[in-house]
């Protein structure tokens, strides 16, 4: 979804929400039978399905899933290219975890919208005044992946997006190294999550970022704080 369209969609959703809450909520909710609407599955992002009996994303995916391709043995050249890169390849299991457990929930909690396009940011939300916010969201599940590494071409794309949308970009890292599989395979403990923040984007170690101990409430405040007034590590 294009950024401006995403913002329009976000505003429309907020308007609908406000309008609904201004009226009588009782009648609206009275017609709802929770038992008929499964919720809470990661693939539903914690939301109700629209109709009773609706298949979850995972169920639909399983129904259309192709036979997996066989993993190719990397050639010597491929190994050398991967070795010289300063990045880690993302494990599919970690990708699924980040997608199912973090991004959409994070967007909802901070009052933003996750973008499903190839935009240079993951989440957008309105700011105070004319500027908007774009958030680069990272999920860290292993202590060894402790550095965000961004090369010039990627930074140029972000700078271009900032200018075009008169926006501020923020980097947020969800350190889930103590959350992921905390209680066994597939059993995560979100109470152990650590959140790190830095204004802008670039290459830096997560340990040098500001740790947001006040949760989402503090994070929301930080987004609108003047750069000069940000705490150490946040700017």
């Amino acid at each position, binding site marked *: 979804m294009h950024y401006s369209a995403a913002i329009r969609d976000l505003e429309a959703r907020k308007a609908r929400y406000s309008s609904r809450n201004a009226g009588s909520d009782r009648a609206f909710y009275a017609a709802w039978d929770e038992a008929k609407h499964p919720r809470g599955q990661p693939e539903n992002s914690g939301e109700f399905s629209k109709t009773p009996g609706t298949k979850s994303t995972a169920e639909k995916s399983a129904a259309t899933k192709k036979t997996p391709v066989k993993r190719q043995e990397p050639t010597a050249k491929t190994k050398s290219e991967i070795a010289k890169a300063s990045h880690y390849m993302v494990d599919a299991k970690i990708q699924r975890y980040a997608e199912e457990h973090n991004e959409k929930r994070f967007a909802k909690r901070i009052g933003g919208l996750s973008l499903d396009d190839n935009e240079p940011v993951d989440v957008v939300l309105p700011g105070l005044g004319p500027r908007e916010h774009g958030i680069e969201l990272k999920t860290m599940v292993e202590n060894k992946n402790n550095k965000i*590494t961004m090369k010039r071409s990627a930074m140029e794309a972000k700078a271009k997006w900032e200018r075009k949308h008169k926006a501020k970009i923020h980097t947020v890292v969800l350190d889930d190294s103590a959350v992921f599989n905390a209680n066994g395979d597939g059993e995560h403990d979100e109470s152990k999550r650590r959140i790190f923040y830095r204004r802008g984007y670039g290459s830096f170690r997560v340990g040098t970022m500001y740790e947001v101990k006040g949760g989402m409430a503090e994070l929301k405040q930080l987004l609108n704080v003047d750069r000069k007034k940000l705490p150490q590590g946040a700017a």
Partner: protein
Amino acid sequence: MGYYAIIGGEQQVPLASLSGWSEFKAWADTLDASDEISHLCEYGFSQNIPALIAQLEASIPAGSVGNTVRDLIGNLRAAPEGAESIFVSDGMGDEDAADIPLLRRALQ
């Protein structure tokens, strides 16, 4: 930008947001005869860039996934000479260099 494509081990280009990559993978699951795309989605890398380009070009979808596909094709076509592989990264690594300060202002 949740995910980046690392092409030839050195070129880092935007690939897709977290949701965008999820949508891309769901689209890839619907394709026939797309082993390179499937391999990229399943294992995070492909080592046959010409075949990957051909499979992407044969099935560009409409909508936001189409934008991701078109950008990926463009970046693969502009790959460094001699590049053989592309892999998916979330921008995290363990480079042991000194921290680089934010370079945003230098780029503007």
